[in-house]
Each structure stands twice: as C-alpha cells, then as structure tokens.
C-alpha cells in the first residue's frame, strides 16, 4: 500500500467552509519514465480483456436470464418494491455490461427499459407489451445473435423500442416537468 511520511493536514478555515489540504499520500506510486518507455498498461489490459471475451456470450446469457426471471417475478407478484428494484438492477446491469460483452444493441434496449422503470409514474399502468417487447428483444439478440443480421436488425429494433418507450414516457410525464427534463436530457456517454 502506498504510504506517506507523517505530515500534518492543513486546514484553512473560512467563514462558510474549510479547505483541507494534505501532502499527496499517493505521490510515491508515481514514477517518471522516458517518453520512449515501451510499457503499455492500457494495451496490456485490453489484451487481457480480449482474453476474457470467450466467456462473454455465456455471461450475457446469464444476464438476459436474470432479466427474464425478474420480469416473471413482476408478472407473478406485481410491482412490489423488491420486484421493481430487481427488474431495474437486472436491466441496468445489461445497460452497463452488454456493450463490453459485444451486444451494444442489447445495451440500448436495456437503457430504454431502465428509463421506463425509472420515469413511468405508475408501473402497474404501463402496458405489459412495453416490458415484454424490451425483454424479448434482448433475449433474441443474445440467443439468436448468430442468426440475426446484428447491425441492421438489432440496431433497428433497439431504435424502434427506444422511440416507442420515449413517446410513452413523454406522454405520461407531460405534467411532470422534472421527469420530462430528465427524459429529454442527453446522455453523457459519447455516441449514445
């Protein structure tokens, strides 16, 4: 673990706030190297990640199965807090992981599903097809990816689902400006 020599933290006290500075406790892990240094930790990590890629299809199938199970629980018990939270987390994990696993369209569909769960004023009143279409589309992309023209079909599917979900959210949130603002706000992820 990086250690610093014991030195005092300096606190500057102002009327409304304190500014606390300390010697950088991690500075000892920084090492100056020549510009021509050939070590490439990022390249090494990318290679290691590529080495995991043979497992990604199985991992994605697990994530898609978890999402389907979460929705089955909702269909059985309704939108209890527990069921709602698990459905959201399952969709949210796919939103975050699927592009890394090689399923970018599944990530877009999962994001659309997350938005529905997060911004619909009453989940029990959301048409069931809106959920099932999202979940079935993710399942199809994951399980039948080899038979789909992944770029055109799954891309078009994800765009259409997002459009339908956004239209629904804009309608049901027409009197809820804070949600409308959040729905319309751009993503911070480049290329979204």
């Amino acid at each position: 673990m990086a250690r610093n020599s014991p030195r005092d933290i300096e606190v500057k006290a102002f009327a409304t706030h304190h500014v606390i500075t300390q010697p950088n406790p991690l500075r000892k892990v920084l090492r100056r190297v020549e510009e021509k240094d050939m070590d490439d930790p990022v390249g090494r990590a990318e290679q290691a990640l590529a080495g995991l890629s043979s497992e990604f299809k199985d991992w994605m199938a697990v994530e898609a199965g978890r999402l389907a199970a979460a929705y089955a629980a909702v269909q059985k018990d309704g939108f209890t807090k527990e069921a709602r939270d698990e459905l959201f987390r399952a969709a949210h994990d796919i939103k975050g992981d699927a592009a890394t696993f090689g399923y970018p369209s599944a990530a877009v569909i999962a994001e659309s599903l997350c938005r529905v769960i997060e911004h619909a004023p009453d989940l029990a009143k959301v048409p069931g097809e809106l959920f099932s279409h999202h979940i079935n589309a993710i399942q199809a992309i994951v399980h039948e990816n080899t038979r789909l023209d992944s770029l055109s079909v799954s891309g078009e599917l994800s765009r259409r689902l997002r459009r339908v979900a956004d239209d629904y959210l804009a309608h049901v949130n027409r009197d809820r400006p804070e949600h409308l603002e959040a729905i319309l706000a751009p993503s911070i992820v480049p290329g979204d």
Partner: protein
Amino acid sequence: MFRIDFNKLRFLVCDDNPHMRRILRTLLHSFGAREVYEAEDGATALEMYSHYVPDIVITDWAMPIFDGLELAQMIRQPESKGNPYAPIIMLTGHSEKRRVTVARDAGVTEFLAKPISAKGLYQRILNVVANPRPFIKTKTYFGPDRRRNTSSAYMGPERRVGEKHEVLQQPSLLDKARSSI
C-alpha cells in the same frame, strides 16, 4: 511522462455483478495491481474499507440494500475513525448528467460511465493519483473540491464567502488511518 506503480496500490472494488467484478479485477491486475479486494455490496465494502484501508475505492452505484452512493457518503464522514479522504471512483451504468451531479455531491472523486474501457479506467486512476484535489468541508458537504477549474472571468454570486483564513492543524492522515486498524 508518468507511470503508476500499481503494485504499490491497494484497491477496493464494490460491485454486485460478478461479471463486472471479474472484468475490473482483470483490468487492475493487468495494470500491475496485486492487492484488489472485492465486495458485492456496500455494507461489506464499508467493513473491508475499515479493515484493509485501501488507497482507491472503485464502486458501482446501483446495488441492493446499501448502494454505491451511500457507500461514498459513509466513507466521507469527516469525524469518522477511518480515512475519509480516499479517492472514490464511481463506475456506473448511469449516464445522465444529473447523476454525475448527485455523485459529485456525495463526495465521489471521479465518475466513469459504463461501458468500461481499459483506457477510461486507467485515466481515472491516474487522475486521482497525480492530481488530488483539496477537500472542502461545509455544513452540507465534505469531499473533494467540486471546482475542477477556476475562472477569472466568472461573473455571479459566490457560493463560498469568508475573510482571511486561519490555519488549523490536524492529525496526519497516516496516523488517523493507522489508529483505525
């Protein structure tokens, strides 16, 4: 040009998703890290934080029961026995600007939106190691300075006010961390 000796850093990774933990572990080990501790929820992470005193925390946001935001808030307790200053990198599927603001106001040091990349993670780690920001304590906030830039051209009300400052001496961070083990 600077490089990081990752083998001298201790990481705590908190994510409820085992696949993401595996990816993070793979990336950190590839960077050269040896000490990577993993927790699958915020409560376990908080215990491990006190026990292992990591240099850097990487946490997911959305987790059951005790999420990454609450973890950040628990770590950023200025009166706590442990180290409230460790850099926290929030690695999350949330990609809305308002989420970044909420994370920042909870004391998160860096925000990294998924999908994860080796480059993105490395840059965030490099930033917290090479460019630590001072901490600010107000009635409602304790965490890294939320102002990353100063602008001499700023026109508008000042959120921070005050006369000439006084300097208070505090126990060293190292002593504080040691006493908590």
